């Protein structure tokens, strides 16, 4: 984290959630080729794309990248995607994309792209939503918003971390639930068609007396509607506003 130097202007307003890490500006600036080595269908609408990026500088769970596609006439489409894989030094990374109806980039990847194709990526980007695995983390995600949170869960397992981690993930039905086979004791699934949306009741056991020493760092990810709803529930449940990090997919 780039701390402000002494004498720097500090706004009289309260929060200013600091970023968790310093961002590697060189990695962020450079476009690299990503070779698609595997495509796995996760649900009827979501698939995981494994990319070989030989010079990948590594990332922290929660970070994202920019992906671009280029047409023969030079036309370019670029979008942000969260890293789904844990940092593992393999030179390969995974993204999980929802197939957005009529979507230009997700549509191409879901219907045209195949193993052996290349796309271009730059990143990792943004230190704000990153989780280095140091503080207890309470993760709330919906739909493809679970992608950066799964990177955190995978990292927690892979590195054998003991710091508390809880994931509450919501999806419309079991068939819409991304990574359904991968969840363990850390996860609670909310299927909204059957039980309705996330409520204070889901959060209550984790907040107040239920929180770990030092409290949670909360990470919320999904559509703007979900982010508004879930972050509001956290605030009402007593989670400090300056310890809620939100990634909205737009």
């Amino acid at each position: 984290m780039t701390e402000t130097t002494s004498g720097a202007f500090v706004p009289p307003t309260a929060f200013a959630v600091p970023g968790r890490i310093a961002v590697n500006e060189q990695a962020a600036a450079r476009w690299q080729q990503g070779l698609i080595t595997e495509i796995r269908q996760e649900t009827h609408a979501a698939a995981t794309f494994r990319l070989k990026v030989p010079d990948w500088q590594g990332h922290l769970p929660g970070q994202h990248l920019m992906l671009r596609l280029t047409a023969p006439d030079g036309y370019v489409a670029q979008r942000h995607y969260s890293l789904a894989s844990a940092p593992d030094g393999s030179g390969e990374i995974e993204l999980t994309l929802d197939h957005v109806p009529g979507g230009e980039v997700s549509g191409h990847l879901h219907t045209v792209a195949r193993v052996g194709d290349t796309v271009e990526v730059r990143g990792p980007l943004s230190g704000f939503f990153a989780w280095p695995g140091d503080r207890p983390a309470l993760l709330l995600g919906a739909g493809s918003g679970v992608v950066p949170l799964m990177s955190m869960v995978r990292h927690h397992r892979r590195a054998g971390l003991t710091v508390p981690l809880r994931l509450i993930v919501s999806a419309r039905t079991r068939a819409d639930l991304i990574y359904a086979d991968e969840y363990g004791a850390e996860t609670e699934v909310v299927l909204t068609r059957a039980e309705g949306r996330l409520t204070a009741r889901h959060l209550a056991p984790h907040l107040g007396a239920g929180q770990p020493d030092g409290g949670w760092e909360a990470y919320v990810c999904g559509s703007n509607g979900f982010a508004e709803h879930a972050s509001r529930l956290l605030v009402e449940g007593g989670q400090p506003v300056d310890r809620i990090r939100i990634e909205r997919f737009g």
Partner: protein
Amino acid sequence: MTAHDPVPTRGFTGRARAADRDPRLPPGQYDARDTWPVLSAEVTPRLDAADWTLRVGGLVARPRTWTWAEAHALPPSRYAGDIHCVTSWSKFGVRFGGVSLDTFLAGAGGPLPAATHVVAYAHTGYTANLPLADVTGGRAWIVWEYDGEPLPPEHGGPARLIVPHLYFWKSVKWVAGLELLDHDEPGFWEKNGYHHRGDPWREERYAGD
């Protein structure tokens, strides 16, 4: 500097487009049409207009604070034009209503000669840095209306800064004030790897661009 030219992607043609790209669209951007994505990283504050204030401080002749009523008594000014978000969407022909930032700066006695930069900050504590020249001369506004309606909370209501010629993360939502400085000081996203200036026409997205 992005190291090389884009490499064509097998099979990608892109969305059907007019032979001539819309000249209002900066490089790498697409037209979000009727949507207006929300990307703020913090909890949307519930801020009553009655509690909203705007402070102009630091290197100005007479630092001062305006209440909602005092700000609304200033001569109104509008922006009608385009906005561009670093996440790649642009929105054409949007209309914001409020007061020119020049009016607030004049109300604070004007910038002192030493002032070169500002930090704009929100009631949430979010910050963005800007060269003073980017927020003077009719290029920045404090706005509370969108399309003739009150600005919705998730878009920065009751009032936000807009600096439409730069990427929109500079247009601080729930704006609380501007501090004029004699040096540049990175704001929230700028500390998180984003470009210091953020000119969409030069595609200044991230540090190093």
